[in-house]
């Protein structure tokens, strides 16, 4: 008999029969469900239309107004008000106001609200981020969120799994972002459609949590249902002081059934850049050097963690952002914001003539706080470079890791970090 993948293990523990395999349609118990200021208003409307009175468990739901906050206009303020009113009505402890709110996919793990072994659904496609904790986490729409808020359950088709083994050692300035961009470049934006991606191998085993979150965050950019990493001592160190509930580490069986296995030696991998207008259009940064940029964005649920900001500060220290460039830095949560401030990173950024924003999804989705005009070009540490993603449909977004983004901000064109270091 075949063993189980990490997804099959976690889902088996969340269904009545106690046993699932890829291809099964199952109704699973949900440990945590959440939505944001774009998706939750529709879920709340549907919740009310059904005549439901109470959510299944107020401690397993979060409402996170992170996309258009601090509210950019009356319409977005009204959307957030729907969340605020519902949270009060239902007695939901995990509604986060400005000052306490951060980007959901950085905030929830940091606050210990999503944990290893969980089944998590979020009405946001980057919910797959928590796979880095060894959870089964996937993005859904507002209707699914409404259903889960009522019943505490959600239906899934158990996904087949593709395994990615990373061998070798990382060159300087190569990070989790480059590993996932490389992966998407290899398999394409639908290369893991409907599948789970398991990331493993000696490179992953040594990676800090920040890089692991970045990798799993962009599994959706390959079409995947989720991306997972088997939890280990690095996971434990992150989770232990934060966890608000008990949690469980699962690992895949050695004889688990994988649909495909990719094994890559990444020792020669250079920092990568994804060209417009798909994350699969990946090239080494050395092949992108003559591209002038108007804006650099460092932040987002992909790369707005403390480690990312430290990386940017290391490069920006004592330098100036190119006069033609606007450099915007978005710490992902208040905790990251405070820590960055205490470490003196903000002084480095402000001295370099970059600007620091409050935590928000902001420009990543062309929401606010750094929108591109027609014909403008940005290099961003975000996750999507679709047409019009950061503003005008005739603008362009390139994607990279924070070190490349910071170096590029200084030179005014896409650059390798080695080009700016003395």
């Amino acid at each position: 008999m075949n063993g189980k993948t990490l997804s099959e293990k976690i889902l088996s523990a969340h269904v009545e029969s106690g046993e699932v395999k890829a291809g099964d349609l199952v109704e699973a118990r949900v440990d945590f469900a959440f939505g944001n200021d774009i998706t939750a208003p529709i879920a709340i409307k549907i919740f009310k239309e059904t005549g439901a009175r109470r959510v299944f468990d107020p401690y397993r739901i979060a409402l996170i107004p992170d996309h258009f906050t601090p509210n950019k206009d009356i319409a977005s303020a009204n959307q957030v008000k729907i969340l605020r009113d519902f949270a009060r009505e239902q007695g939901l402890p995990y509604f986060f106001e400005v000052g306490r709110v951060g980007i959901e996919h950085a905030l929830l793990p940091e606050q210990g609200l999503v944990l290893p072994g969980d089944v998590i659904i979020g009405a946001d496609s980057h919910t797959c981020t928590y796979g880095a904790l060894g959870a089964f986490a996937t993005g859904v729409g507002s209707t699914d969120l409404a259903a889960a808020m009522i019943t505490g359950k959600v239906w899934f088709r158990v996904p087949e799994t593709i395994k990615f083994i990373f061998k070798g050692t990382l060159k300087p300035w190569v990070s989790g972002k480059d590993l996932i961009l490389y992966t998407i470049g290899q398999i394409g934006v639908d290369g893991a459609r409907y599948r789970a991606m398991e990331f493993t191998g000696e490179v992953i085993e040594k990676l800090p949590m920040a890089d692991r979150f970045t990798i799993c965050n962009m599994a959706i950019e390959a079409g995947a249902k989720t991306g997972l990493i088997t939890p280990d001592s690095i996971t434990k160190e992150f989770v232990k002081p934060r966890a608000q509930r008990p949690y469980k580490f699962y690992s895949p069986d050695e004889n688990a059934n994988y649909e495909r296995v990719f094994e890559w030696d990444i020792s020669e991998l250079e920092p990568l850049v994804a060209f417009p207008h798909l994350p699969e259009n990946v090239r080494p940064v050395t092949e992108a050097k003559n591209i002038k940029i108007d804006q650099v964005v460092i932040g987002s649920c992909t790369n707005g963690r403390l480690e990312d900001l430290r990386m940017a500060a290391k490069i920006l220290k004592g330098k100036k952002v190119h006069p033609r460039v606007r450099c915007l830095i978005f710490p992902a949560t208040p905790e990251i914001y405070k820590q960055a401030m205490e470490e003196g990173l903000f002084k480095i950024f402000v001295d370099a003539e970059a600007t620091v924003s409050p935590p928000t999804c902001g420009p990543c989705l062309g929401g606010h706080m750094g929108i591109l005009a027609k014909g403008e070009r940005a290099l961003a540490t975000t996750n999507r470079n679709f047409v019009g993603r950061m503003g005008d449909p005739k603008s362009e977004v390139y994607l990279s890791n924070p070190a490349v983004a910071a170096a590029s901000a200084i030179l005014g064109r896409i650059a390798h970090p080695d080009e700016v270091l003395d």
Partner: protein
Amino acid sequence: MKIQGKAWVFGDDIDTDAIIPARYLNTHDERILAEHCMEDADPDFSRKINNGDIIIAGKNFGCGSSREHAPIAIKACGVSCVIAESFARIFYRNAFNMGLPILESPEAAREVKSGDILEIDLSSGKIHNKTSGKTYQASPIPAFMRELVQAGGLIPYIKSKMEESFND
């Protein structure tokens, strides 16, 4: 259930930002979302189409964000069905939950031209191109999804479950 309408053809990897750009997501008003449907792929789409028209697309339609505003915008601007070579998974799920019919047919996605008149039988998955005379068989909708559709979507399904539990 039969649908008839004019085809509007799009390419591969049409993402949810192209279907409904995030700059309009500070509302969930269907009328506003409908006005901007497909705007970044075809700026005049919502003004050109007639009620009942059909979107044809290549692979991975609806990739990107989980915004349910995407199927809402498509449905609200009058599109009766989307036929694609393949769909991104969250979009696929959202479309069923919202009651927007979608069919996977790589052959139809390849051969149908903008302006062709299509007749679709949703229960059998048969797509007849009245302009070219060709007929295509779309992949059947999985049994579980058919149950959801028969119940009238996810919410009526949940409602019936809630009534059951009240009666227990």
